[in-house]
């Protein structure tokens, strides 16, 4: 079928670039990559149109692994959910590819960059188009691989190499659970095809499985295992640690992989397997709570970070938290909706910051991302500034922009979700304040006030070229308009298009409230957004010395936040170092070298020593030889007398 080309085009681009890029294509790499991804964007449009017409495609290309009763195919499913994801992935990829032409211009690994990026798009598309869990797992791991390559793209920087490794290994922890979940699914349903599994979901309800002596509800176990994967991939607590470090990668990568697409794979996966999750309250609540907690937790860290990209990174973690919150309360479409809007404004934020970094890249190294060394960039780079403003308005949920609709939907659904829901709603609102605050803080520090970097660099600062700004503008449009497909009924009847569109896959969220309540919820979220904005303005425009004061006043808290709750250090202390030390000192040095080798070399040594002793029996004296013979004979005789 034609749609197989959607993933294959980028793959082709990857192969060509990786094989011939270094020697032949070099800085023409984009000529291969961009058309490829654009092509798959167009194809996705076709596919989307098809789905709009209501045609859902589910085909197996060929059977992949067959072993006994285990049988899984390479096959694609294009339904409403996939269609949305296709749109998000391909459109944003296309923009970012174009953006990268300018951003990565002149980099010595130019071809490599586009190759990896294409490979990523391929993997991401496989991930979203898969029609069974194992192929999903395939894409899942493959995107991890690409993120490993792209984070470590500047491999000569130790920090970059470390970040890449960290990302992959941390994700492996999640995948460990995910993989087992997949196996358990097969053992429960006898298949890994979405359709078979989901249709059979109700039949295994209440089935339990014996886990180390405890009877555990199978569905719950499956969901929790799958969710492990999601936690890893979407950087939720406690596996969020890799995402901020991932900012070592080039900014387009951060925008595409670590904001718009890959990190949302977890959300997609949970939404995809909603028939399973819906059957397990425990799993749902876990998802919701993890999401809510992550949302506020990450937001608090973002308050005090200095590195522009890290702020956005933590904001991403926090926004992903929102999405899981939505999924957790059963508002799958809301989650996907936010995923979709978030893709645009967050990509915009990243690319904007990229534009800033690009502008400052003459500045002394490691200062180019430090907001304390920025300021007053507004007059140098107006376009960037204005798109930043738009993105920020959107993320903080100012009515009319994309972020507002999706975020509001989530909060409203949380609010409806019973007692736990109320609590989650509160978390969401709190996170919203913080979001507003740090987002505006970023704007003010970067663009307002006066330049704080070293003066003679100032005149280098310039607006980025068209190839960078045009994608920004397009994304800005998205950041404004993307939300208009999901206007809640209370504001405008029958305008929640996306909800309706996704309903066949994700169902309708249950729970109803009065219009008044809903208006209240909207009012509150808007109010907190504005409050956060005002506070930020007050602190960073009016009283610029206030932040230091507060920081010194609440030193411990400030340090706690600034050091990200010391979680990295904690993991290092309790996991990484112990394992390394144990493997070195105990396993290798002691057990392998001393005990096992001791025995292995000990026995021969023993025999050798014995031999040295024994040869002394051969004294060389004739009489002793005779004696030996005589005694020998006597012994035998003695034995015989003894025997009878």
């Amino acid at each position: 079928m034609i749609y197989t080309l959607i993933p294959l085009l980028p793959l082709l681009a990857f192969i060509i670039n990786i094989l011939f890029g270094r020697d032949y294509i070099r800085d023409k790499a984009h000529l291969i990559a961009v058309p490829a991804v654009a092509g798959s964007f167009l194809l996705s449009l076709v596919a989307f149109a098809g789905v709009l017409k209501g045609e859902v495609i589910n085909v197996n290309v060929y059977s992949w692994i067959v072993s006994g009763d285990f049988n899984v195919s390479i096959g694609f499913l294009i339904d409403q959910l996939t269609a949305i994801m296709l749109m998000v992935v391909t459109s944003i990829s296309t923009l970012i590819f174009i953006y990268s032409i300018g951003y990565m211009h002149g980099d010595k690994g130019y071809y490599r960059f586009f190759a990896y990026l294409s490979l990523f798009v391929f993997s991401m598309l496989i991930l979203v188009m898969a029609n069974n869990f194992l192929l999903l797992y395939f894409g899942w791991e493959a995107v991890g691989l690409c993120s490993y390559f792209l984070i470590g793209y500047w491999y000569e920087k130790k920090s970059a190499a470390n970040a890449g490794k960290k990302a992959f290994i941390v994700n492996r922890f999640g995948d460990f659970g995910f993989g087992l979940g997949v196996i358990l699914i097969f053992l429960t349903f006898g298949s890994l095809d979405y359709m078979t599994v989901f249709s059979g979901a109700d039949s295994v309800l209440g089935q339990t499985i014996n886990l180390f002596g405890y009877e555990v509800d199978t569905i719950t176990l499956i969901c929790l295992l799958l969710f492990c994967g999601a936690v890893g991939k979407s950087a939720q607590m406690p596996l969020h640690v890799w995402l901020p470090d991932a900012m070592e990668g080039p900014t387009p990568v951060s925008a595409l992989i670590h904001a718009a697409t890959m990190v949302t794979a977890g959300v997609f996966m949970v939404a995809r397997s909603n028939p399973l999750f819906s059957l397990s309250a425990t799993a749902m609540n876990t998802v919701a709570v993890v999401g809510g907690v992550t949302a506020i937790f990450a937001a608090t860290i973002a308050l005090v970070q200095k590195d522009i990209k890290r702020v956005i990174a933590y904001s991403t973690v926090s926004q992903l938290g929102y999405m899981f919150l939505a999924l957790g309360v059963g508002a799958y479409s809301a989650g996907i909706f936010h995923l979709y809007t978030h893709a645009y404004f967050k990509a915009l934020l990243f690319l904007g910051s990229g534009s800033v970094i690009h502008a400052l890249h003459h500045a002394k190294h490691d200062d180019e991302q430090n907001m304390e060394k920025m300021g007053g960039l507004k007059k140098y780079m107006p376009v960037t500034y204005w798109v930043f403003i738009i993105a920020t308005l959107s993320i903080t949920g100012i009515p009319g922009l994309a972020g507002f609709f999706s975020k509001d939907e989530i909060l409203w659904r949380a609010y409806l979700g019973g007692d736990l829901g109320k609590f989650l709603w509160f978390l969401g609102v709190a996170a919203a304040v913080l979001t507003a605050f740090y987002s505006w803080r970023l704007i003010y520090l970067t663009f307002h006030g006066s330049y704080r970097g070293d003066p003679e660099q100032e005149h280098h600062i310039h607006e980025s070229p068209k190839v960078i700004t045009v994608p920004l503008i397009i994304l800005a449009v998205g950041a404004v308009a993307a939300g208009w497909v999901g206007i809640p009924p209370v504001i405008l009847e029958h305008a929640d298009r996306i909800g309706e569109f996704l309903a066949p896959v994700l169902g309708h969220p249950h729970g109803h409230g009065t219009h008044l309540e809903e208006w209240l919820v909207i009012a509150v979220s808007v109010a907190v957004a504005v409050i956060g904005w005002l506070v930020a303005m007050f602190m960073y425009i009016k009283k610029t010395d206030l932040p230091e004061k507060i920081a010194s006043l609440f030193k411990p808290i400030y340090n706690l936040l600034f050091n990200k709750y010391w979680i990295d250090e904690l993991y290092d202390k309790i996991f990484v170092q112990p394992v390394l030390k144990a493997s070195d000192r105990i396993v290798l040095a002691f057990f392998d070298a001393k005990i096992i080798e001791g025995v292995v070399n000990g026995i021969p040594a023993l025999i050798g020593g014995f031999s040295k002793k024994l040869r002394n029996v051969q004294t060389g004296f004739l009489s002793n030889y005779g004696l030996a013979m005589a005694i020998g004979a006597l012994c035998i005789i003695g034995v015989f007398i003894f025997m009878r």
Partner: protein
Amino acid sequence: MEDVIYNNLNYPIITWTVFLPVLGAIIVLLLRSATAIRWTSLIVTGLTFIISLPLLTGFDKTTHKMQFVEWHQWIPSWGINYFVGIDGISILFILLTTLLSILSVLVSWKAIANKAKEFHISILIMEAGMLGVFVSLDFFLFYIFWEAMLIPMFLLIGVWGGENRVYAAVKFFLYTLIGSVLMLVGIVVLYFTGGETLNILALSSEQYSLNLQFWLFLAFFAAFAVKVPMFPFHTWLPDAHTEAPTAGSVILAGVLLKMGAYGFLRFSMPMFPDATMMFLKPIMILSVIAIIYGALVCLAQKDLKRLIAYSSVSHMGFVTLGIFALNTQGVEGGILQMLNHGIITGALFLMIGIIYERTHTRKIADYGGFAGLVPWYAGFFIVLTFASIGLPGMNGFIGEFLIIFGAFRAKMVYGVLAATGIILGAGYMLWLYQRVFFEKADTERWATGDHKVWDLDMREIITLVPLIILIFWVGFYPEVFLSYMHTSVAHLLENINQTNYAGGDHLLTRLITGIF
């Protein structure tokens, strides 16, 4: 005579495949110039590969019976015959062997300067021995090949190896010999209890008393567990691997280690099903230990080659785990994983040999930033790295997934524990890759002067490409390979599952009752 499918080709294909290398060795023996010797052995190995191809094409996947069988009287007074044939379990290893032999000749092209004649003779004899092991259907024949391999391998390690080669060679030889002689005694006992025959098929169809099975299983276990090698019989492996010349390591990792697992499949399981059940638990536990233990040791390794060697311990742990899961996925995964491990680790040793020719150091600390110095090399290496980590789309994933699936199905906890090996595997391989290829390169050491490293040349790329292709081929379309083993594995499993062993009779009590 058992029901087997006799060779219906107009020439004795298996005999040709096995003994062509011997013929080649004899020719090499008569040659003088090193170049001539190299070309001869290359041609011979190549021919062997080509000759072995019809096995694949003409193979009948629908039957578990032995195929291409040849039967000739050999030692009538002992009822021993020249009896060879292949089935779905052995066929892939034959192809793997013939392929890897070519590569090991190629990779030694420049590396082996002194005693080239002896070296190539050893390689060729080695190939014959390995092929013989996989095709033998008579225990005596099997044992002759099994032992005969020791001699050339001993020389390969001891003559052309690293500094500590003699120790490694002798250790390898004696360690393996101990296991083998115990198996020999077992074989003889089997000979008399099985009605004065060493015909493997006939012996497999016999029933043996539980006590006898117990002891025979132990005797065979001694030989196979050392060869695999299973924890804790693994310590010969790192030494042998590390000291052996590249070709030696490739053959060791690629084929030799497989023979232990192959032995379990071919002999221990069909002949002693009850004992297999009895030993199931301890062996699975040992396998899981091997997986995790090997990975942990890898994390601590400072030596490039040693690290890969220990990773073999971990991977072979997966293999034995899968085989003794005793379900289709486990066994097929195990067999496939043997193949994969042969390809991946074989290739990794090739890579290490290639870089060692340039840098003459195996200390990981001496490397770093090589991605910039030798990009193509780094590219090949990353593929192998992820293949060995088990990334989907590459062969490692298929094998490991099926094994974990099988183990999980057989006994959940083993599957879970084995899966942790995947995390650790990613840990040590990526860390290795980072330390060798990433970060700043020591340019004034490697980019200039007499130590200047150069990227892969054509011969090396030709050597590697087939393996890379196989990695992705298995990764994306394993059915090509799995389909060969389906029926045979099914047949094997149904034999074992017919066991009337009730269990409960605990191993320890058996040991004690057995001894007294």
